[in-house]
Structures are given as structure tokens and as C-alpha cells.
């Protein structure tokens, strides 16, 4: 399959409470096998998906927060976090997992996958997507 499209995943919901965050991660990991360009956007309550120190044991759910750290190994290294959504919730980028990847074009140097974006950049990301999947 030679077509390469830009798949942009919009993550809008908290990690627990609905199934969407878990499903999004599932689609992203399965989709990685198709070697498409992948962008992950975290906006609104979706920014909570990346917060550090999660433990879902108390609500009887499977914790999946550690899986995000594996995204870099799947060549998913374009992570965009809405800075306004963070600020609205009293969070900063330091409250989030520092996701990284190893750059094969730069002697496998470890680089950050995290990008803070404002509303305007967010709207550009959405406009430029070929396939937009909302979770």
C-alpha cells in the first residue's frame, strides 16, 4: 500500500469515564503497522490522558497510561497538546509524561515528541489532516 496519508487523532476526553481514550490508543497502535503519518492531538479533558502518576486500580479499570510511553517505538512522535486546555485545568507540561522517540536520522538520538500548541496551530493541524479521527 503505497499511499501515505496524514492521520490525525483528536483526543478530547479524560482517560477514564468513557472508553474513548483507551480505544484511541488501540487504533493508533494498530494503525502504526500501516506506516502512515500520525499526529496525536490532546485537547480539552483529553490532556488528562497524559498526566503522570495515574492509578486506576481504585475504580476497577485497567491502567493504560504507561502505554503512551511506547508510542515513540511505533514511530508515533508527533504529539500536540493544547496549551489553553492545560492552563484551564491548572496543569503545565511538567504534569504530563515526557514522551520521547529515537530519531533514526540522527544516530538514534532521543528527542521529545511533545509539542505545545495554541488554538490557531490546533486549527491548522485539523485543516491539514487527511483522515481525522475523534475520540
Amino acid at each position, binding site marked *: 500500500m503505497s499511499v501515505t496519508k496524514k492521520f490525525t487523532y483528536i483526543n478530547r476526553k479524560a482517560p477514564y469515564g468513557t472508553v474513548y481514550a483507551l*480505544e484511541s490508543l488501540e*487504533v493508533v497502535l494498530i494503525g502504526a503497522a500501516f506506516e502512515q503519518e500520525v499526529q496525536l492531538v490532546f485537547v480539552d479533558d483529553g490532556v488528562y490522558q497524559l498526566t503522570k502518576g495515574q492509578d486506576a486500580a481504585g475504580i476497577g479499570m485497567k491502567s493504560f497510561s504507561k502505554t503512551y510511553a511506547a508510542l515513540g517505538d511505533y514511530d508515533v512522535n508527533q504529539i500536540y497538546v493544547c496549551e489553553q486546555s492545560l492552563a484551564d485545568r491548572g496543569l503545565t507540561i511538567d504534569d504530563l509524561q515526557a514522551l520521547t522517540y529515537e530519531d533514526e536520522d540522527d544516530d538514534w538520538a532521543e528527542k521529545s515528541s511533545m509539542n505545545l500548541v495554541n488554538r490557531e496551530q490546533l486549527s491548522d493541524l485539523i485543516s491539514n489532516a487527511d*483522515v481525522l479521527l475523534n475520540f
Partner: protein
Amino acid sequence: MKFAIQINEGPFTHQSADTAYQFTKAAIENGHEIFRVFFYHDGVNNGTMYGVPPQDDRNVQALWSDLAEKHDLDLVVCVAAAQRRGIMDEDEAKRHGKGASNIAPKFRISGLGQLIEAGIQADRLMVFGD
């Protein structure tokens, strides 16, 4: 144009299941191609043949099965979402030790890769429901 359709809601609670059907039907009638219809999340509930809505109500599953029969549509139910919600074909039912299958005619069970492939192959992926 070549469309792929994603349906995230079950029948009867959300109109989006009906809207997806109406959109698909209208697209075909207007000469467009439907690459695939992918049933995801609660949308897998559109694919059980055991629904018996009142006679004066529409039967969303039957509408899909008929449309697929007529136009040879590829109706795919997400396997992981289906297993969680008890939608099974014969192989799945046997594998999980369940008494009977319930998947409706013309629906088939497959994985999320089918959704990604649909996104790649279609000109537009249309998503219905949350």
C-alpha cells in the same frame, strides 16, 4: 467519490445510526462508491440479528443487511468492540464457548486495521456518532 463510513453508536438511542444509513443510501443513489462501512464502539450493536423492534418502527439492522445485499456493501464489525458487547459470528461463538452466533446477514467481523485501510483507500472517511 469513494466514501468510507464509520458508525460509533448503536441503533435506536442515537439518530446517528440512522443518519449513517441514510447518508450511505443517498451516496449510492447519487453514484458514489462506498468502500466500507465500519461499526465501532456501541455501533457494533447495529450488527445483531436478534433485534425485534416494534412493527411500526424501522429495523436499522435489517435496513443495513438489505442495502448490503442490494449493493454488495462491505459491513465490518470491530472484533474487540464486538467481543465486549456479545456480537459473534459462528467461529467466534465456538471459540468462546457461546451457544449461538448472532451476527446479522451481510455483516462480518474483523479488526481495526480495516478502519485504517478504509481511511487510506477512501477519498473521505465519514464518522457518525461520538
